């Protein structure tokens, strides 16, 4: 089957600096991939390249066989930016109804996604009055509206309480098992165990591309923090 994501020799220069350097990887359809790495390593830049909003210096990015950013992909890819990108002066349901019309899905989808992200109590609350974590979930809900084939989620669990974080990861796993491909970034290494596959990133490079179990085994570590350190100190040759 055609991979959901195929990145070849991607290079991105921002502010005169190479922030993503010669990155290549593929992601098969229906998998839940974690993009992990410290703040500033290039996760957001890589995700922007996937959805076609980043000017790239070289290489190619294809989603479902089409170049990133091509019009045919716009209804198939859901992107959640790191900062919540919803209208803070509208209520949760007003936001979702607007995005539902933009994505040409029935307004009833709004009710479904509000439930999925656990915001049922806040349907008619103005987004600006919600906490940071709640606003991030509104932003996530808008991306779930169109039931896209690929979800690109930039740090969706930051600032979310542990119980809800667990529920979100259960939701992501459920989406993946129903055939959606998800790439989820985080700078919290523990989140690695929730993923089926990991892309570990540092300084614009992919250090490892493996399953969580294989990564722990190959580095002889018991947790992902030490696995990451082991990779940096003795990179696989």
């Amino acid at each position, binding site marked *: 089957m055609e991979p959901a994501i195929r990145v070849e020799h991607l290079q991105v220069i921002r502010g005169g600096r190479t922030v993503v350097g010669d990155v290549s990887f593929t992601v098969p359809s229906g998998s839940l991939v974690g993009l992990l790495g410290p703040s500033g390593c290039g996760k957001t830049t890589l995700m922007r390249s996937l959805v076609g*909003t980043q*000017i790239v210096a070289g290489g190619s990015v294809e989603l479902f066989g089409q170049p990133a*950013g091509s019009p045919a992909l716009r209804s198939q890819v859901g992107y959640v930016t790191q*900062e919540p*990108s919803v209208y803070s002066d*509208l209520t949760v349901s007003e936001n979702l109804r607007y995005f539902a019309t*933009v*994505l*040409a899905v029935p307004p009833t989808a709004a009710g479904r996604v509000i439930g999925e992200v656990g915001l049922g109590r806040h349907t008619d609350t*103005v987004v600006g009055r919600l906490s940071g974590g709640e606003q991030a979930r509104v932003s996530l809900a808008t991306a779930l509206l169109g039931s896209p084939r690929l979800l690109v989620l930039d740090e969706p669990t930051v600032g979310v309480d542990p119980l809800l974080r667990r529920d979100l990861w259960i939701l992501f796993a459920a989406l993946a098992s129903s055939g959606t491909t998800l790439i989820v970034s985080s700078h919290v290494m523990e989140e690695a165990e929730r993923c089926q596959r990991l892309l570990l990133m540092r300084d614009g490079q992919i250090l490892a591309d493996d399953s969580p179990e294989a990564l722990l085994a190959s580095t002889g570590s018991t947790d992902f923090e030490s696995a990451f350190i082991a990779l940096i100190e003795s990179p696989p040759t």
Partner: protein
Amino acid sequence: MTVRRTVATAHRVLRQLRHDPRTVALILAVPAVLMGLLAWILHGRAGDFNQFGPPLLGIFPLIVMFLVTSVATLRERTSGTLERLLTTPLSKADFVMGYALAFGLTAVIQGLVVSGLSFSLYGLHVSGSPWLVVVVAVADALLGTALGLSLSALASTEFQAVQFMPAFILPQLLLCGIIVPRSQLPPALHWLSDVLPMSYAVDATRQLSTSATVTSEFLLDIGVVAMFVVAALLLGAATLRRRTQ
């Protein structure tokens, strides 16, 4: 471009305004209060009020809508909502026309309020139809919206966007013929005023002040204003970038 997405965008912008009643009150009240002030300043000088009133009746809404639109679009750019929208099937034209539609409707209400007060309470008089004054006021407000949409692309902060009012609107105010008739300007400035949209907006109201019938000059002037609106909207759509650094 799809009608559904354009209308939904306009609807969304109007909803945002509804959550901010103070801004709505300012949009509607500021031009009306300024016209009242002008009437008071020119108290007992009906000729002057009838000369300066009609062009300013269009210019005040233009300035208000320019500022409101600049800040609104800049907020979309900086909050990430624009970037997100441009990854969806929404077209650039949907976005720009949505704004034009929402603020166009606002401008109609604003134009009716400021004209209604000017012709009744403030005693403004024109030879032509007062309704055509409303048309010019709405066209001017739309021009302000369209210029705000396109020029906000040049701003990266709200401080910059607000400065565009003195930078792009005040020179037009100086050159549009209110202070010195355009025919008496030095040749270079006259030529410059010929390519600025506000000159035509003022010329159009001048036709209404002096002529009881619709003149061909009026139609030409209002047509030029309409063309500037279309051009600025096209420019506004062209400045939206799906891919950025």
